[in-house]
């Protein structure tokens, strides 16, 4: 299953001559056989032999079972250089001197390592004569790689001629005919309006919308319906969410050490929704997400130009404390992976440690792309034009200046108080001593000696014997005092401290700009007395305000404060900032085996070679991120249009024409309708890369309108419905389900965009697309209903059915709240139970109930309520409708 490579049979004839002479030495051969070979066999062959290579267990590309193998060396270079024990990787790794330490299960005894050293020193005589065929593949054949179907440009196709009208239908029918399949009939009108409304908006149609459509006899009724739905802002909320899966959109990181959530992440989500609603051409959609910051247009709409950068700007950030380069490599991998699978449907990340095993992507290509991001940062960019930003910054500078004046005012008040207290140091010390040794009450000294309680408390703490070792030298004698020292001794020691403190200038407590002495003195005594958080004479501005601002100067303080408020009011509101990736573009070398510690050849910044023109001249300028954006968005790129066309198809039909939407490589699926895929890709680009155009092409077909019903004959040949002979019954994804529960019960809040809400709030009524998405801990409801892990790009959702989901439907506060609201709503929609049941069916299922359904309902509703239950029978019934399969699965 290997990609075509040229297998290099290694011939080592030129080296043979030298070796023979040494090998003739029987003693040397004996040494090898006795000391070297057994160790190699026992300790190394498991991972470094032809046998290991065949079992796919070869490590580091190094073979040790043949002479040719060790002469060639491994990924990290030559293993053994005969006669030169200091060279080569082999002995180093036996000695555990570097990154690679061998054997992995523990160091060999020193004597054995010494044997190897001697053997190498003596010329590494190795009598083994086996040759090897698997030394190393010589790289990928890019020219051959270009022949793969998805790497060839899509070609305009001749539309088959048959009974169908639309070109899509004609392609599809051609396959039916080819496979002997007969399509099932079309779905009825109620099913269709429900299907397409869910499909385009993620919500059910209202009963009025259903009736209007059913009553519309015009041949354009279906098209009108589609046009209306595509214009609804609900469309962007639905379809934007699909893209957010691909973009692995989230607002935080999987881990919490040293990272903070991205508070404006929602701007990217809103950007995506808006792009869908505005039908932004897909090539622009691509460019703006990769390099909006480097583009000139749209010049004035900064939101549009920058907020899409969240695609990578909200990417993974890992813990970089110890293995920094490794963590950076992982972050780069997140970018390369999301970018290439997302836009190109290629698994370029597979080439991180070795050439891609199945696709024509050499390791160098991986690092050519990664290098575009090497050294770049995930930062924020204000969504304001330069003049607006300047205005804001200037205004903020004024606010800061005004705040500083307040601080200095308070600092001066504190300084004055500290100065006063410093003059009374001896008294404070004596009081502190008595408080500690004689349990005297501090208040006593405040009233008797006029000491300040604030400073006294600080002195008591400062002079705690536990602090003796940390205190400045001037306190040495003081701390030497015994608890029962005589008052005279205490007095003398206190006076001594005070006399030494007299020489200390009281510093400015709040640093004053351009004034050397202030706040940042280097004198340790000054710091310990006045500036440290534990200093006895330190006064924080807030404390100064509480205690040392006297009534006479209070008006002045109020005036300064007023100025702060005035400046704040005068300032424009802070511009929003978008999360972007910027800077860097430093380029990289190949990391051999993906290991940042073993760097290989240069990997100049660039694009995938297999997608680049073969005759391209070496670029004059380094390849930039903008070049990357253009290379992806280029109409010449064989993948970009195919991949998005296929994604849209898959989101409509539940299955792509290529059923691996993010893998168009050789391990991915082959297209079921290759001609149709090419046709759509070509026409899509021709039609301005408009997604709304594409939706219409797909929805205005007969194949889209087939009923979701089985057919025994077709099941035998195509049970998986690959050839689309029937419609697909789809389970609503969690967003559509929750939104519909809110919608049907009359609770849905349709506000567009803005900051996220928390789904754990059972009373939250906004659409689910606006909920908080966490990589650290995905919300329980989302997780339960198959929302993908937001750490990695996702091309589709799993559909699993487990009892915990049903516990949510049966017992959750959210469900109960919707059931109550729905019952309330129904009460007003009819006078009898039967009328209300009819209204319920129209709201929940877009159809009238059948007789037996109505009977079942009425029988249930008649059962007497039990006193211990807190839900009425109507509420219980409403909940059953909301929890039903018909609500969850759309035909």
């Amino acid at each position, binding site marked *: 299953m290997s990609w075509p490579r040229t297998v290099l049979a290694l011939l080592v004839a030129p080296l043979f001559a030298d070796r023979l002479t040494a090998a003739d030495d029987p003693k040397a051969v004996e040494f090898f056989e006795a000391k070297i070979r057994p160790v190699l066999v026992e300790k190394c062959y498991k991972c470094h032999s032809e046998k290991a290579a065949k079992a796919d267990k070869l490590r580091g590309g190094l073979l040790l079972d043949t002479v040719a193998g060790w002469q060639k060396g491994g990924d990290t270079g030559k293993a053994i250089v005969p006669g030169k024990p200091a060279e080569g990787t082999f002995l180093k790794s036996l000695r555990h001197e570097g990154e690679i330490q061998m054997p*992995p*299960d*523990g160091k060999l005894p020193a004597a054995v390592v010494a044997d190897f050293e001697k053997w190498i020193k003596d010329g590494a005589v190795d009598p083994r004569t086996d040759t090897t065929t698997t030394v190393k593949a010589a790289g990928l054949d890019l020219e051959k790689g270009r022949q793969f179907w998805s790497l060839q440009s899509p070609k305009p196709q001749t539309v088959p001629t048959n009974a169908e009208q639309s070109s899509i239908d004609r392609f599809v029918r051609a396959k039916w005919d080819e496979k002997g399949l007969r399509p099932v009939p079309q779905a009825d009108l109620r099913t269709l309006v429900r299907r397409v409304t869910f499909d385009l908006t993620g919500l059910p149609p209202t009963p009025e919308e259903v009736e209007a459509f059913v009553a519309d006899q015009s041949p354009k009724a279906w098209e009108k319906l589609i046009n209306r739905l595509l214009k609804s802002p609900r469309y962007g909320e639905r379809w934007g969410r699909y893209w957010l899966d691909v973009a692995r959109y989230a607002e935080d990181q*999987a*881990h919490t*050490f040293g990272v903070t959530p991205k508070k404006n992440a929602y701007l990217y989500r809103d950007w995506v929704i808006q792009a869908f609603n505005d039908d932004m051409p897909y090539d622009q959609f691509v460019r703006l997400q990769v390099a909006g910051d480097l583009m000139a247009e749209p010049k004035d709409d900064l939101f549009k130009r920058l907020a899409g950068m969240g695609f990578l700007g909200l990417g*993974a950030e*890992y*813990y970089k*404390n*110890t*293995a920094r380069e*490794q963590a950076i490599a992982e972050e780069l991998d997140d970018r390369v992976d999301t970018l290439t*699978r997302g836009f190109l449907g290629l*698994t370029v*990340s*597979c080439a991180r440690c070795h050439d891609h095993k199945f696709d024509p992507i050499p390791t160098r290509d991986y690092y050519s792309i990664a290098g575009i991001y090497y050294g770049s940062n995930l930062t924020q960019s204000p969504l304001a034009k330069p003049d607006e930003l300047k205005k804001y910054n200037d205004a903020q500078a004024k606010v800061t200046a005004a705040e500083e004046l307040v601080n200095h005012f308070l600092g001066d008040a504190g300084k004055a108080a500290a100065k006063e207290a410093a003059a009374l140091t001896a008294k404070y010390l004596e009081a502190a001593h008595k408080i500690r040794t004689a349990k005297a009450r501090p208040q006593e000294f405040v009233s008797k000696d006029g000491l300040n309680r604030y400073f006294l408390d600080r002195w008591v703490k400062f002079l705690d014997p536990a602090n003796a070792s940390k205190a400045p030298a001037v306190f040495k004698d003081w701390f030497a005092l015994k608890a029962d020292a005589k008052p005279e001794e205490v007095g003398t020691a206190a006076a001594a401290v005070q006399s030494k403190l007299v020489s200390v200038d009281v510093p400015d407590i709040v640093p004053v700009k351009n004034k050397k002495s202030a706040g940042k003195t280097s004198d340790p005594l000054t710091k310990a007395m006045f500036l440290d958080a534990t200093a006895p004479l330190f006064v924080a501005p807030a404390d100064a305000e509480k205690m040392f601002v006297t009534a006479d100067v209070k008006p002045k303080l109020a005036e300064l404060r007023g100025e702060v408020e005035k400046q704040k009011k005068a300032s424009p509101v802070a511009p929003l900032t978008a999360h972007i990736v910027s800077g860097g573009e430093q380029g990289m070398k190949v990391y051999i085996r993906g290991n940042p510690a073993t760097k290989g050849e240069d990997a100049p910044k660039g694009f995938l070679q297999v997608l680049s023109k073969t005759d391209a001249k070496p670029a004059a300028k380094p390849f930039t991120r903008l070049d990357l954006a253009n290379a992806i968005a280029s109409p010449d790129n064989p993948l970009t249009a195919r991949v998005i066309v296929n994604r849209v198809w898959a989101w409509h039909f539940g299955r792509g024409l290529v059923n691996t939407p993010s*893998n168009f490589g050789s391990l991915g699926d082959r297209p079921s309708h290759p001609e149709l895929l090419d046709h759509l890709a070509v026409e899509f680009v021709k039609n301005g890369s408009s997604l709304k155009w594409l939706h219409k092409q797909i929805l205005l077909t007969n194949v889209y309108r087939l009923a*979701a*019903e*089985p057919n025994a004959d077709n*099941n035998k040949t195509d*049970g*998986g419905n690959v050839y689309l002979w029937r419609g*697909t*019954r789809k*389970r609503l994804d969690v967003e559509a389900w929750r939104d519909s529960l809110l919608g049907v019960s009359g609770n849905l809040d349709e506000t567009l965009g803005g900051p996220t809400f928390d789904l754990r709030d059972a009373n939250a009524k906004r659409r689910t697309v606006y909920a908080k998405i966490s990589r*650290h*801990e*995905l919300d329980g409801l989302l*997780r339960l209903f*198959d929302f993908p*892990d937001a*750490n*990695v790009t996702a091309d589709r959702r*799993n*559909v699993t*059915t*487990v*009892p*915990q*989901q049903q*516990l*949510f439907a*049966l*017992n959750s506060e959210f469900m*109960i709240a919707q059931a109550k609201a729905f019952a309330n709503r129904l009460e007003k929609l009819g006078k009898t139970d039967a009328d209300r049941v009819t209204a319920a069916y129209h709201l929940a299922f877009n159809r009238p109930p059948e007789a037996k*359904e109505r009977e*079942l309902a009425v029988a*249930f509703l008649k*059962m007497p309520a*039990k006193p*211990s*239950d807190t839900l009425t029978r109507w509420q*219980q*019934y409403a909940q*059953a409708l909301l929890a*039903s*399969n018909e609500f969850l699965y759309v*035909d």
Partner: protein
Amino acid sequence: MNFQMPFTRRELLARTGTGLGALGLASLLAQDATAEAASPLAPKVAHFPAKAKHVIHLFMNGGPSQVDTFDPKPALKKFHGQQPTTAGLKTERKTGGLYQSPFAFKKCGKSGIEVSEIFPEIGKCIDDICVIRSMHTNIPNHEPGLLLMTCGNTQPIRPSMGSWLLYGLGTENQNLPGFVVLCPGKPVVGPALWNNSFLPGVYQGCHIANLDPKRVIDHIRNKNLTPETQREQLDLLNGLNKMHADKRAGDDQLDARIQSLEMAFRMQTEATDAFDVSKEATKTREEYGKGYFADACLTARRLVERGVRMVQVFYGSGQPWDDHGDIEKGHRTKAADSDKAVAALLRDLKRSGLLEETLVLWGGEFGRTPTSEGSNGRDHNHHGFSVFLAGGGVKGGMAYGSTDEFGFSAVEKKVHVHDLHATILHQMGINHEKLTYRYSGRDFRLTDVHGVVVKDILA
């Protein structure tokens, strides 16, 4: 019928590598396409006969010190305060001289394996325990260490071992979550440690912080209806669903959900019962002792006896074993709090015969330095540390591998975390190289491209 499977079996098979293809296929083909078979959590046939059916991982998060627990180093006393000959080994922080263990070691059991005095009860079980003294891991930081131990990768983007086990083997009790994580709050890193990552969401570990049986699982209780009324409501719902399904013959996913609703109804009583340790005899409860960890150990036993595939018990929130300062006080307190419960769990499992099919793993994400940090603490150490295994077909009364004379670095019969994973999977009947999931164009494994089964410790 092959019409519209939920999480279709075909897709599941398409996504599995050759090895699991067989593993998954065997069970899927063995049964009709009933709801049971459609469930991705239905029990599956292993690669080969399994020695163990369940795993209990007692995670001493924060990293207990090997030289103070299971790896006695008399040389530390002799060279106390001196620089070790292994100087130059880097850990997270700079450490000082060698620091002797404040604890005495005692020969225990028939095997005479030495165990620290802080674990007298575990010591009594030593003949059922295999201590691995030659563990090593990649990075001396909690985050990558925890992730490697739980998910086999130092970054949070891989499924956890419990998720892999569920994916490979399913679980034996469909009325309980198959992979349960007990931790009073969150360990460092948090949910990524029991994440399903790219595996389907059903394989995610079910984290339970509060052991109150009425609150263990989200929405387990109906606060509004008596069980009798809820039954009436469910009968109504079944009636609606049946009429709906009758018109859509052959759609397995609709039947699967009807079954699933019934299961949920039963789960309300069964799950509550499984977590209710108050149903245990007083004597048993006394044997385990008091506190969250003791209750969690007892809960773990109740869960595995009901067929839960894996239970991971974190010793506590944050990183409790992380004694950078005062190793003596810190380790003594935590050992005193956990010794009885761990031993009680082992004895309890042994009495009921469950130990034979339950593999118990005790250990942290790394060890600690034999050198001192500050005056009396120890730094993280990834070069060498100890864990122990018990039950599940692993030899008892064995000390495997060794560290250097000071316990700094594993030197003999080294066992990497990947090797430990490979061994655990092996005991569960899984070839770790064949349990794969096709994602992003390649087949992923718990052990990535590493891992060797440590055959010497297998009974």
